């Protein structure tokens, strides 16, 4: 049974069809890529999965549960986390806090415990703290723990976003252009990181990318979107030679 099953997903913005009949069956442990020219509807698919918009039509099932109509925070607590095309960190808050906030739904104390400082509060806070530090260490960000997120260099900010996403203990990770603004060396490191993360955290990954190096390097399967429609689906090799795909990209070469 697929972990994430999307069927007939369709969404309009006013009269504009942003996503048309999108289908995806994501099996556990897969790394699938979503590519296409700008404005093809890729981020919209992410937004639909994570509940930012309610799709006009279609079904989204995760682990058997229907996600359509659920609040974003609930979808994320269920195990689907994401990063953003433009970095959306909590800029004024510390790096540590950014990751700790990702733990929100995991906290095992309620308001009363917090307000009156019950013992369970202290225990949980320490656990959250430790988990957050663990994640920061994983991404080599622990030395920045108390710095505001905005002080971090760009590459570290992107890593922090992923760390924050992992804080909610997801099964599925949606990465929106994780390689944006990176040079080839950084991209290689990113590829290693994603592969490592996938094993370390037992993740299933759905990835939007423009950098073909990343897509071809790590995706087992690729879907190609153009103007909201899925124009191709297959292995990297198949996609690279697909005439419709090449046409959609108008001469963009896969590196």
């Amino acid at each position, binding site marked *: 049974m697929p972990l994430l099953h999307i069927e007939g997903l369709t969404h309009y913005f006013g009269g504009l069809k942003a996503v048309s009949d999108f289908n995806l069956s994501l099996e556990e442990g897969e790394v699938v890529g979503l590519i296409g020219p700008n404005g093809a509807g890729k981020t919209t698919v992410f937004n639909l999965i994570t509940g930012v918009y309610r799709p006009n039509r279609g079904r989204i099932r995760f682990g058997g549960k229907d996600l359509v109509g659920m609040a974003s925070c*609930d979808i994320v*607590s269920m195990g689907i986390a994401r990063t953003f095309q433009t970095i959306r960190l909590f800029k004024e*808050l510390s790096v540590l806090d950014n990751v700790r*906030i990702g733990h929100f739904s995991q906290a095992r104390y309620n308001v009363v415990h917090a307000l009156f400082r019950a013992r369970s509060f202290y225990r949980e806070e320490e656990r959250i*703290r430790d988990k957050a530090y663990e994640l920061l260490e994983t991404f080599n960000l622990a030395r920045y723990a108390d710095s505001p997120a905005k*002080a971090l260099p760009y590459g570290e900010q992107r890593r922090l976003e992923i760390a924050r996403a992992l*804080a909610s203990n997801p099964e599925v990770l949606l990465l929106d252009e994780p390689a944006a603004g990176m040079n080839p060396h950084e991209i290689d490191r990113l590829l290693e990181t994603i592969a490592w993360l996938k094993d370390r955290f037992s993740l299933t990954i759905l990835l939007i990318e423009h950098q073909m190096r990343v897509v071809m390097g790590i995706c087992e399967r690729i879907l190609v979107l153009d103007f909201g429609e899925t124009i191709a689906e297959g292995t990297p090799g198949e996609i690279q030679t697909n005439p419709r795909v090449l046409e959609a990209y108008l001469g963009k070469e896969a590196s």
Partner: protein
Amino acid sequence: MMIESRRAPLLVLGTILRTRQTVLLVIVGLALSFFLERSGFVSSYILQILMYVGINIILTLSLNLVNGYMGEFSVGHAGFMAVGAYTASIITVWLFRNQAGALVFPIATLGAGIAAAATSIIVAIPSFRTRGDYLAIVTLAFNMIVKSLLENIDALGGPRGFLGMNRLTSLASVYAWCAITIYIVRNFVYSNFGRAVLSIREDEVASNLVSVNTRQTKVLVFVVAAFFAGVAGALFAHLVQFINPRTFSIQKSTDILVMVYLGGIGSIFGSILGATVYTVLLELLRPLGVWRWVLGPVMLVILMIGRPTGIMGLKEFAGFVPIEERARKKKEGTAVAAASH
């Protein structure tokens, strides 16, 4: 790569020490207020000012939660104060028929807080879908509706007001409630929920997408804030022994805003400072007569233009920050320096 909880023993020790010191401080303060009031060393005028300061501290702290930490636009806070003031007065004057009794005032004050907290739902729900200017209008509308309702309910005295309360507010009770408010607000801020609130201020959409239940959090913040505003209202009503709807108009809401922004948004010490400075300043300017009411608005405008983050900026007095949360300054310095290659 596991991090050992090497800080754990220090942590526990640290909190025990803190707690003991703090509790001691609170008890001393309580005893002091008790003594001051009965001794006659201090004039009743000064005592009244001190109580006003205390009530304003509670109001400012409660609004700071919403406007400072959560970054919302609540500009009708006096509405919650009104609900609290009237509820408490109804309880002591009608329900208890002004009987003396140690529990009467605490019950009335708690009732006031709960009533105000309940009405905060009216404001919390629109806050789910609207932010910024629109929420400002909602909160203002709420303030006006409360005021207008009170003016129309003759049983509560209508525009002529409600009187007959006994002077149940004492310096000790104000001090006690101040301490409680500071305790609760501080605990709230340095917790999962406090972090959630800050994340809403930073980026609400992203907050939702990292598992924060923003709706629940918003309701929580409004409820806690309204509760304490209601408590402040109860204390106020039983200090001045007469309340009418006009007391709780936009003017009052604006006064609270001044205190929040003067002291510093997102800072507990700032709220205490802002409330104290503003209350005392207004008293000192009493000889100016009507002109002193011009001061508040002018201060507000100058603050907004010159220093919108208030006296404290965005910093907090170390005494309120839990030990575990204090930033390690040395590490921060080297980390950022290393990053700038």
